C-alpha cells in the first residue's frame, strides 16, 4: 500500500506542476489568464503535504533534531522512539478529529473559483491522512515495544 500511496503523491505533484505551468502558458502565450488554476494548484499542494506527511510518519522520515538521540545507546534510542511516537499521538488525534468536523461543516462550501470543488474534500484528505498517521504511529509503537522488550541490553552501549 505504501508504494501505491507514494505513487499517488508523485502524481499529485505532477498534477500541481502541470496546473502551474498551464497557468503561465495560458497567460503568456494564449493571453488569457485562467481564474481557477491558482486555487486548484494550491489545494493539490495541501493534499500532497498531508498525505506525504503520513508516509513520512511511517518511515520515521519527518525532520527532527538528532543531536541528543544519536549519542545514546541502541536500546535507549529505541525507548526514545517509543516516547516520540507516544508524544505524536495526541496532537495527530486532535488534528484528525478537527479535520473531520471541518469536513462535515464545509461539505457544501465550494472554492470561489471552482464550482465543483468543496473545501470539505480538502479537509477529508486531511482527515484521511490523519487516520493514516495514527495507523502508522500505532504500528510503529507495537513494533518498537516488541523489539525493545525482546532484546537484552548490550554492553556499555546499552541502556545503562
Amino acid at each position, binding site marked *: 500500500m505504501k508504494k501505491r500511496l*507514494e*505513487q499517488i*503523491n*508523485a*502524481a*499529485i*505533484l*505532477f498534477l*500541481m*506542476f502541470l496546473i*502551474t*505551468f498551464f*497557468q*503561465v502558458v495560458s*497567460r*503568456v502565450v494564449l493571453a488569457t489568464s485562467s481564474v481557477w488554476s*491558482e486555487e486548484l*494548484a*494550491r*489545494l493539490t*499542494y*495541501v493534499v*500532497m*503535504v*498531508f*498525505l*506525504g*506527511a503520513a*508516509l*513520512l510518519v511511517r518511515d520515521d*522520515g*519527518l*525532520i*527532527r*533534531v*538528532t*543531536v*541528543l*538521540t544519536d549519542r545514546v545507546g541502541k536500546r535507549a534510542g529505541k525507548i*526514545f522512539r517509543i*516516547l*516520540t511516537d507516544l*508524544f*505524536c499521538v*495526541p*496532537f*495527530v488525534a*486532535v*488534528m*484528525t*478529529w*478537527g*479535520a473531520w*468536523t*471541518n469536513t462535515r*461543516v464545509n461539505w457544501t462550501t465550494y472554492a470561489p473559483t471552482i464550482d465543483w470543488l468543496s473545501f470539505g474534500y*480538502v*479537509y477529508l484528505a*486531511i482527515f484521511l491522512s490523519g487516520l493514516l498517521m495514527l495507523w502508522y504511529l500505532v504500528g510503529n509503537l507495537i513494533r518498537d515495544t516488541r523489539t525493545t522488550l525482546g532484546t537484552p541490553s548490550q554492553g556499555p552501549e546499552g541502556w545503562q
Partner: protein
Amino acid sequence: MTYIITLGLIGLFMLGIPIAMSLGLTGLIAFFIEQGSRMNIPMIAQRMMYGINNFVLLAVPLFILSARLMNTSGVTTRLFNFATTIVGFLPGGLGHANCVGSLIFAGMSGAAVADAAGLGQVEIKAMDEAGYDHSFSVAVTAASSTIGPIFPPSIPMVIYGLVGGVSVGRLFLGGVVPGVLMTAALMAMVWLYAEKRGYPKTPFPTFRQIVKACVDAFLPLMTPAILLGGIWTGWFTPTEAAAVAVAYALILGTIIYHELGLRDVVQVFADSARDTAALGFIVAAASFYGWLLMRTGAPTAMAEGMLEFSRNPLVLLLIINLFLLVVGCFFETIVALLILGPILLEVTSKVGIDPVHFGVIMVLNLMIGLLTPPFGVVLFVMVQVGNMSFEEVVKATWPFIIPLLVVLFMITLWPPLVTWLPNLVMS
C-alpha cells in the same frame, strides 16, 4: 504560558520529536491551557491548512523538483566542466571551479542541500582525482553550497517572503550581489590554501576550449537567465518561474540529453513529493503554533525588549546577527524563519530597516548555521557524501566560515549591496 510555549518547544526538539509534531504538540498544550475543555478543536486543522494554502509556497516543491531533475540529468557535470574551463587556470583551479559551479547551480536551485549532495559528489570526485586533500575538497564543497539559497532562486527566501509579506521577486534580486560576493570571498580563501599547499592548476584554456565549454553548458546556463528574466519582466511570478524551470529541466533531461528515462522521472517526482511534505508539514504546524504564540503577546514583548536596548539600526542588526548565528547552530533554517522571522521583522521595521535587506541578512546568517555544529545540515550531508566523520568535517569546514562571515558583515554594514538591484529593477 510563554515559558511553556517556548521552552516546551525546545525541550521536545531536543528529545528528538519531529519538528512538526513538537510545534503541534506544544501548540495543543498551550491551546488547552488557554481554552480548557471548550477548546475550539477544528481550529487546529483550519490553521494548518490556512498556513500552507498559499500560492507563494508552491515555489518550494517546484524548485526542489527542478534541482533534482538537473542533478539526475547530467546537467551538473556539464556545469562543473564549464566552471573548470573558465577558472581552472587559477592556483587551486578545481577549488575555484567548485565555487563558480555552485554559483551557477545556485541560479537553478534554491537549497544548499541540493547543491552539496548533487553537484558536491561531482566536485569532490574530480578534486580527489586531481590530487587535492580530501578534507579541503569537502570543506570547499560544503561552504560553497551555502551560495545556493542566497543567489536566486531560494527556498528560504520564499518562506521569509511568506511570513513577512515581502515580495519574493525583490528578495530574489536582493540575493544576486551577496551571492557573487560569497563566491569571490570563498575563491580568495581557496587561493590562500592553494598558495600554501601548492595545489595544481589546469593550463590556460585555448579559445577553442572556451567555445566548446560554452556550447556544452549553454542550455543549462540559460536556466538562471530564463528565471530571473521572467521575474524581472513581470512575465511570471516566482512560483510560475519555478514551474517553467521544471518544464525546462524536463525537456533538457529527456529530449535533449536523453539521460532521463520515465522511471527516473517518476522517482524524482516521488522523492520531491517526500521532501515537500517534510517541509510543508512543518510550515503547517508552525502556522498553528505561530498563531498561538502571537496570542500570548510574547513576540511583541520580545520585540519591545530589544528596542529598549537600542534603537540604532546598525547596533540592532549586529545584535540580531550574533543571536541568529547562535540560533543557526541549533535550529533548522525553515523553523527559524517561521518562528523568529515575524518577531525580528517587527523589530527591524520599527527602526526603518528595509525588509528585503533584513531578509537577505537573515537567510545568509542561517546558511552559515548550516555549517556550524551541532546541528548543521550541510555538515551531515558531507559526512555521507565525503565519507568522513562528523568531527573531521567540522574541523575541515570551519576556516571557510570566515569568508562567509566577512560577506555577512559587509552586507550588514552597507545595505545597498542588497537593495541596489531590486530597487533598480523593480522601482
